[in-house]
């Protein structure tokens, strides 16, 4: 035979062997990450990504022993864009898992398009009540919380503290109204007034003057993002923090304390996780996050870190075979991972059964402004909407 023929045969054998070799190796599992990565709320989505990737990188780019490819997409807080993104991820990239999802309106837009295609939705922040209740899907797994539970916890906290007259405030949209309704379900005292302010309102002096005049025992508010920063800052400027306790949600968490600093000291916050929770997984998570980012992790990072751990434990259980959907679903539902919250279980609607804590803004051991857990009004709490989830 001629040399060129031998050479061609040799090359073909090498190529065939190589192809056979790679057919044995695991193709990376693609996971779509959809979050708000731009605009004023970018810190939330960014921290969800940071928390998720912290766990992935800690495990050498693998989850459950299998290499993963995280496809990062920015939903820009636009539900219609989020729908387009998930459609692209499912149809073009054929992802079996989508995670992240920062805001409730985005979650409401994408939950059905994702779950009805049999794609697993591991949400690590938004947890709107319809998907906790009647619109639940077995393909959804939420590692954050159902917002109303915090309000219900605060109602019990207010009862315990003996606050007889409470003043309620929230922005004028559905989440605000739902949240105040949650408080009223468990609080037994008198509601002095219930005030709804305009969305993105920058100045609350007029409303706070009313509060000062009404002199309630406590004020309970839901003000996420910049609204929270403005509200707490102006509450502080009137000297009210020391006089009238401020029970808040969304106003003094990891996303706003950076801007508020000392102005927020003494304000209460509702949470399912705190940097001071005492378990091995949390200590490791907080240490690693602080080493990498030089700041205390936010709850968004913690929830997303747990999402990564959850996916990892499930992939390990099915030995990388995520296309076996019933098996993978059962593996996810088992929630067999060391959560940074301690014990972790899913309810029938695949929302967590967890403790609800009340935290207070205080300086930690290193003198940084942080959140200190001061009460646990609800232990191993299943959210109120789980009973309405019939399909799971």
């Amino acid at each position, binding site marked *: 035979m001629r040399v060129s023929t031998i050479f061609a045969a040799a090359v073909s054998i090498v190529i065939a062997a190589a192809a056979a070799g790679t057919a044995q190796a695991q193709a990376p599992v693609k996971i779509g990450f959809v979050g708000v990565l*731009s605009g004023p*709320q970018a810190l939330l989505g960014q921290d969800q990504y940071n928390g998720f990737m912290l766990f992935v990188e800690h495990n050498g780019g693998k989850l459950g022993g299998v290499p993963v490819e995280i496809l990062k997409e920015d939903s820009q807080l636009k539900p219609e864009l989020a729908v387009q993104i998930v459609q692209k991820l499912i149809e073009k990239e054929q992802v079996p898992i989508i995670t992240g999802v920062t805001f409730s309106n985005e979650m409401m837009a994408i939950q059905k398009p994702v779950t009805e295609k049999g794609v697993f939705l591991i949400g690590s922040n938004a947890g709107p009540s319809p998907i906790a209740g009647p619109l639940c899907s077995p393909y959804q797994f939420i590692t954050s919380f159902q917002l109303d539970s915090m309000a219900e916890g605060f109602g019990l906290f207010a009862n315990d503290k003996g606050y007889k007259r409470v003043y309620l405030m929230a922005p*004028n949209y559905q989440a605000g109204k739902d949240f105040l309704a949650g408080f009223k379900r468990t609080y037994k005292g008198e509601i002095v007034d219930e005030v709804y302010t305009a969305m993105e*309102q920058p100045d609350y*002096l*007029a409303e706070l003057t009313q509060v000062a005049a009404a002199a309630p025992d406590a004020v309970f508010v839901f003000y996420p993002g*910049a609204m929270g920063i403005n509200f707490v800052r102006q509450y502080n400027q009137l000297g*009210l923090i020391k006089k009238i306790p401020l029970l808040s949600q969304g106003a003094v968490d990891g996303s706003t304390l950076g*801007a508020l600093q000392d102005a927020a000291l003494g304000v209460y916050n509702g949470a399912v996780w705190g940097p001071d929770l005492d378990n091995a997984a949390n200590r490791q998570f907080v240490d690693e996050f602080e080493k990498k980012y030089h700041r205390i992790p936010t709850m968004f990072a913690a929830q997303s870190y747990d999402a990564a751990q959850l996916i990892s434990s499930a992939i390990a259980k099915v030995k990388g075979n995520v296309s076996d959907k019933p098996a993978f679903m059962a593996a996810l539902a088992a929630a067999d991972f060391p959560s940074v919250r301690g014990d972790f279980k899913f309810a029938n609607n695949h929302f967590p059964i967890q403790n609800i804590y009340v935290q207070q803004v205080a300086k930690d051991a290193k003198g940084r402004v942080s959140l200190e857990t001061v009460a646990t009004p609800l232990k191993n709490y299943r959210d109120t909407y789980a009973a309405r989830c019939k399909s799971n």
Partner: protein
Amino acid sequence: MTTALVIAQLVNGVQFGVLLFLMSAGLTLVLGIMNCINLMHGSLYMMGAYLAAAAYGQTHSFLIAAAAGVLGTMMVGVVVERLVMSRLYSRSHLDQVLATFGLILFFNEVVRIVWGPAALSMEMPRLFAQPIDLVGLPYPPYRFAVLGVGVLVAGALYLLIHKTRTGIVIRAASANPAMTRSLGVNVKLLNMLVFGLGAALAGLAGVMASPIVAIQSGMGEPILILTLVIIVTGGIGSVRGAFYGALIVGVVDTVGRTFLPMLLRQLLEHSYAQAVSATITSMSIYVLMAIVLAVRPQGLFR
């Protein structure tokens, strides 16, 4: 509802109005003289706040930060005027809206790229840190500083416009731009001056607001909307209109937000009043604007 509360809310309304006046004065002149709709005026407010916060971070002096904010914003305004606005004066209003809207998006991204997405904060000057007692209610004294600065600026603007040569030229250009041009006034310089002045005022508004509100990308838009309502209500091109319009809008908005719910609760059943009052109060200033436009379309003081 006590007298003390009414007084306190009126003070709130007036100081809010005065802050809005700083924004409206510049915008009404730009629209009146150059006949140019400038939507990025809110972005100048945002730049004033950001530059002040950045300068404060370096120097820890509120006065230096305020100067940096005002002068910096004025320079930004002049650059924008030379590069973008001067090309828009002869274009249609729609082109101006599109171009200046693009500038809003541009500045929102610029501040995010330079300072990050998380909100910045500005410390309250120590002089005003402790709340004072106003007719029995706690009140932040800084708001009186805002009121004072606003009134001083209004006075200075009045002197500029009514007692100086430059002021005469500005008033002439506002009343009849074409005639002023043909009388040999250096229109390019005048436009730059007016825009720069408007930018400086917007920057000052941003500086004054910075200890009160979160400084972040997009903070100018809510203020821009109120400013547009004010200049339409007060009369385009009239600084006097901007002043009274701003006071009216400030007081109507504040009183609407605080006393209208009480009134509605007297008239309607409780839960219905709750649902309706939040929506109605946010509409109150637009209803006012609609009434003014229906009765006197050129504005109240033009």
